[in-house]
């Protein structure tokens, strides 16, 4: 068994565990997009095992579709987290213009860090992959930063589940950003595969963190008798 297949199997095991926890504790009701993303990961993981032996250029096409789906899901999860924050902070308005403005600001800041260089010797498909991965990484980190700034500026509290999911996503997004920059500077093609493995391992770290967190039971009631006595 290669390291890649071991990582894939461990990842699928963790996703199954997370899905089981979500179903048993009915968390999927409040986080449906995150739950659907885990099902998507399970399906693409299984499909990845089936197309393992394909020639590299065909496998890269599969990987491009997989990566696009992953990143669109991650953006949808960040929007879901934003809605969760609004639900948690009752009596507040969305102010989407402020969120969009902060996203543009964060995207400009992060893209100035990433240094868009694509190796000249890469094939067109590889170039497309590198550009797409850079763009998605920047959008992911920018969306996360915009969400953090937006909630901080408006003084909004984060519900615990959403905060833990953002922690995992933030860790993965920062490692992915570092990986993109490392790819840009090293550009040794297949020899740099260890960078991708580190990136996937960081996602396994985030998955393990979520499994451990959601496996712990959490008291739901936030309003104590004392608080009820103070506020009418």
């Amino acid at each position, binding site marked *: 068994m290669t390291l890649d297949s071991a990582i894939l199997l461990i990842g699928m095991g963790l996703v199954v565990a997370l899905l089981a926890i979500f179903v048993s504790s009915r968390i999927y009701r409040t986080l449906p997009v995150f739950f659907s993303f885990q099902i998507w990961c399970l399906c693409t993981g299984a499909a990845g095992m089936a197309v393992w032996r394909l020639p590299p250029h065909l496998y890269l096409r599969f990987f491009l579709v997989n990566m696009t789906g992953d990143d669109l899901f991650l953006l949808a999860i960040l929007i879901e987290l934003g809605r969760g924050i609004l639900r948690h*902070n*009752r*009596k*507040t*308005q969305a102010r989407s213009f402020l969120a969009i403005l902060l996203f543009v600001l964060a995207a400009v800041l*992060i893209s100035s*860090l*990433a*240094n868009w260089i694509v190796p000249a010797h890469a094939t067109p498909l590889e170039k497309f992959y590198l550009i797409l991965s850079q763009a998605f990484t920047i959008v992911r*980190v920018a969306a*996360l*930063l915009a969400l*953090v700034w937006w909630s*901080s*500026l*408006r*003084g*909004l*509290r*984060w519900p*615990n589940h959403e*905060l833990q999911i*953002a*922690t995992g996503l*933030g860790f993965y997004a*920062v490692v992915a*950003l*570092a990986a993109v*920059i490392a790819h840009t*500077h090293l550009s040794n093609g297949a020899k740099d595969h260890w960078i991708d493995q580190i990136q996937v391992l960081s996602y396994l770290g985030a998955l393990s963190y979520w499994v451990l967190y959601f496996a712990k039971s959490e008291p739901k009631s*936030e*309003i104590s008798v004392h*608080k*009820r006595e*103070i*506020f*009418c």
Partner: protein
Amino acid sequence: MILPVLQIAAIACVALYLVRWRGAARRRNAQTWDSLLARLRPDWSARELSDHFLWKEGLNATPEDAWKRMEGPKGLWVMYQNARVMLEMADYAARNSETVDRVLLETLRSDAMQIRVCVLMALAQYGFSKASEGVRVNAFRAAQMYTGMAARMTQLLQENAAVIVPDFVAAM
């Protein structure tokens, strides 16, 4: 060689910022009313600027007087920090009471944001040109909004938790 080092340093800064933000978000989830009261800065009070502080909006001072009475950047920084704490207090009240007025809460959010922006602008100007006319005008505007926010906060507490108003008035 310098570019990769700068990029890695910038990513480390982003990571550090996210770690600090997460710590603050977790602390905020665990805070109590008493811990919020304890976070209000007692070393300067806007009573120096208004006879009706906490009850009515407005100042009894000109921009020049206000700058002197707020002890320059010290008073500005206290307003910056207290605006945030008052916003968290309003948020705390909204979570624990069904009767908090939505419009009042939104006004407090807006007040806190405007005060902080105004204070940061005044402090930045102060850094370049000390107590110039522009600094004093910005500080005066921040203080005016601060008295308005404090009065609205008192009103919110009176309507929803009158028993804790004395503690709030003493802390401010």
